[in-house]
């Protein structure tokens, strides 16, 4: 199911709890990547521009890349409001139309592992590799499988101002995918459901894929506070280089 073509739109934007972390995340990215003002940066799967816009506010040169037309429209509007010169490009991350172009590529907060076919997920890393300049670096941030399977809860919910947000997670051990349903119960009466499915990786799998794609010097952090990775870490945040 190509769910990623369906759910990334205005509704997702409205309910996305990550909006408020844009500043925190961009600070973390800036630090981990040791960004320089002259760096050409690609925010891969930029969504509605949450990170790209924050980085642009700090005067970095960022391009945002995403498949969702409605996300890109939201991103462009936000950039215009802030008077920022961020370029937003629509495309599929399995076919990145740039070669040797970027100093840094960011794939932040589980924008990886969407495709059902493992080859497609690998291909994203291969495309990233070729889109980087020699010596350029990738920052990849995904969920840590070891942590997810330990703290696994199947159902949760929160009450928000005008709706209830219900979550049901099902972890499929055969595919190592997390199948998630979100149910939105609007207080005025409607019910909406959004489903998605993401491949969840352990560190050794991520490393194997990155190496296979050609990356060198793989460094790993375990959370957004920049602490070292361990088996219990919530995230796998990898920083790696395209060889010079």
């Amino acid at each position: 199911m190509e769910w990623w073509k369906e759910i990334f739109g205005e509704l997702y934007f409205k309910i996305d709890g990550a909006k408020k972390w844009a500043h925190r995340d961009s600070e973390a990215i800036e630090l981990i990547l040791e960004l320089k003002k002259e760096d050409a940066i690609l925010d891969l799967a930029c969504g509605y521009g949450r990170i790209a816009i924050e980085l642009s506010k700090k005067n970095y040169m960022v391009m945002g890349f995403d498949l969702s037309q409605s996300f890109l429209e939201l991103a462009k509007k936000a950039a215009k409001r802030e008077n920022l010169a961020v370029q937003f490009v629509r495309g599929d991350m399995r076919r990145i139309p740039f070669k040797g172009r970027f100093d840094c590529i960011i794939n932040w907060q589980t924008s990886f592992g969407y495709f059902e076919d493992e080859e497609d997920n690998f291909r994203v890393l291969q495309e990233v590799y070729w889109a980087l300049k020699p010596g350029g670096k990738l920052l990849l941030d995904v969920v840590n499988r070891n942590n997810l399977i330990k703290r696994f809860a199947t159902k949760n919910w929160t009450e928000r101002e005008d709706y209830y947000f219900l979550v049901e997670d099902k972890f499929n051990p055969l595919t190592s995918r997390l199948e998630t349903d979100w149910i939105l119960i609007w207080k005025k009466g409607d019910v909406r459901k959004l489903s998605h499915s993401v491949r969840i990786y352990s560190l050794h799998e991520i490393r194997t894929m990155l190496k296979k794609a050609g990356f060198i010097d793989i460094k790993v952090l375990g959370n957004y506070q920049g602490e070292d990775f361990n088996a219990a870490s919530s995230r796998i945040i990898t920083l790696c280089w395209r060889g010079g």
Partner: protein
Amino acid sequence: MEWWEELYDDIRMREMFEKIPKGRTEAQVNFVEKVCSLKKRAKILDLGCGWGRHSIELAKRGYKVTGLEINPSYIKEAKKRASSAEVAIDFVEKDMRKISFKEEFDAIVLLWNSFGYFSDEENENLIKNIYKALKRGGCFLLEIINRDWIVRHFTSKNWQMLDDTCEFVRFEIPAVDRTGVPTFILEERKFIPEESRVKGKLTYIQGNRRIEKTTNFRFYSFHEIRAIFESAGFKETQGYGSLEETPIELDTHLMEIIGRKL
């Protein structure tokens, strides 16, 4: 109205019934027969009998059953079910705190976590009254959730979506209304270590309608139940972690606890 009178409506009962694995009722009754060595025509009291799930199975096997339940709509449903099963059961609508039987029953069962609703003192009193209601040589089976399991597997939130698969009950809110909006039950719980209680709030939502209910369960570990049993007069308290008579462990969910009046 007490919280358990509000909580246990037809939706709740239907939803609980759906969770029962096939063959569970028969297996529970087999277990009662075995551990209590029930004689033919034994007199049995089923406390908190609900829709009569166990009462009816016991009556089918020839025992003389009294089913006691506080909820009048459950009693009504139980009577209906007993009559279609063609068994005679004495159903009594009563608060179990008010039982005053004297040496009347060969066995008393209190199953499926129907214990822990009241104050600690009332809960302990109930066990004393159960002891009094038993004949000498009688046997009491209590089936309750293990406090240790609660502590180890505690989740503070849960929710369910009800669909309209039920044919036989009347809902306060129908599971699916005419416009096709399903009913959701959102639950949040808090464990109170000072009291060993789980206090919860349930929100039933359908469209723009909402009903709130509360829960307040006292949970016990086996050693506490054993002490309560013994102070009521029970002897030879046994506890099992399953109907297969495995031992109680930290991860045991339902405990089967047996007390005997010698």
